[in-house]
């Protein structure tokens, strides 16, 4: 039962955030600093999701050159800067990870 309540709660919060300014409130009724702050939400939230996924793949900080996810992530970042294309970024990162895992498994 509590899972169903969580599902409803997650659905409701995602909808209310999406609908906030489109359906309910005029963004111009908010102070300027608030609209400024909104600009920094994507870089902050996305970095807080991405960086632990690369540097803490097993839950502890891993900066060794055997951290395949860190290296594959760097490949993806370079691909994104160069190509500006989401699909190419994902493909480059995934292929890099599989290649690195294959190589590391043979070195170990």
């Amino acid at each position, binding site marked *: 039962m509590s899972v169903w309540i969580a599902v409803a709660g997650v659905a409701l919060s995602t909808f209310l*955030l999406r609908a*906030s300014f489109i359906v309910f409130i005029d963004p111009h009724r908010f102070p300027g600093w608030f609209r400024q*702050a909104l600009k*920094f939400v*994507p870089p902050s939230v996305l*970095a807080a*999701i991405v960086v632990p996924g690369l*540097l803490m793949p097993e839950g502890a900080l891993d900066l060794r050159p055997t951290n395949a*996810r860190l290296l594959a992530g760097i490949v993806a970042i370079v691909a994104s800067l160069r190509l500006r294309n989401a699909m190419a970024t994902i493909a480059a990162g995934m292929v890099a990870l599989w290649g690195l895992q294959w190589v590391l498994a043979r070195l170990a």
Partner: protein
Amino acid sequence: MAPVLLGAVPFAFVAGVAATAAGMTPAQGIALSALSFSGIAQLIASQLIAVHSPVVVTVAAAFVVSLRFLMYSASMAPHVAHLDWRWRVLLSFLMTDQSFAASVRHYADAGDTRHRHWFFLGAALTLYTFWQASVVAGVLAGAQVPARWSLDFAVVLTFIALLVPAVRTRPDLAAAVVAAALSLAAAGLPYRLALVVASIGGIGVGLAIESRGRR
């Protein structure tokens, strides 16, 4: 839209696998996806449901990772203000990182913009269909997907593909770097609280640097 669809398929599949791995029934996993239509909210909710977190914690964590929708909503609002409320509810429900990015480019084009909500609707409904079909496949495949395929890495890669273009100015970069550092420093906190601390810290630093630059 085609590349966006190709990227969404593995991501949605991973979100479906995660729901089953968290102990959710197929109906719960599919309902979570059909009603929230947000990969990261689905993944975070699944992770917290897996460890039997209180409902309030699960919902709060999904709320924080979805805060970027506030910014999308504020930017989209002027373009759809002329539509009646049913249209605006529908377009809100279907908004994603991908459809927002596509519409921003579309609205930036010159010309008549009054009928562009049809473009947005078509793109969003196509993505919704592909997304839900892949989630269902992931929910049903569940634990049969071998861990050594590392399919979960598609999630991190999707966010790299969104993060890099989102960093355009120095204050953006400062916000991202500070949020990244805080997310590592606070990683020991329970209930994914590191994400909350890191996001607030990043936003604060971005604002501070921007306001200093203007003086």
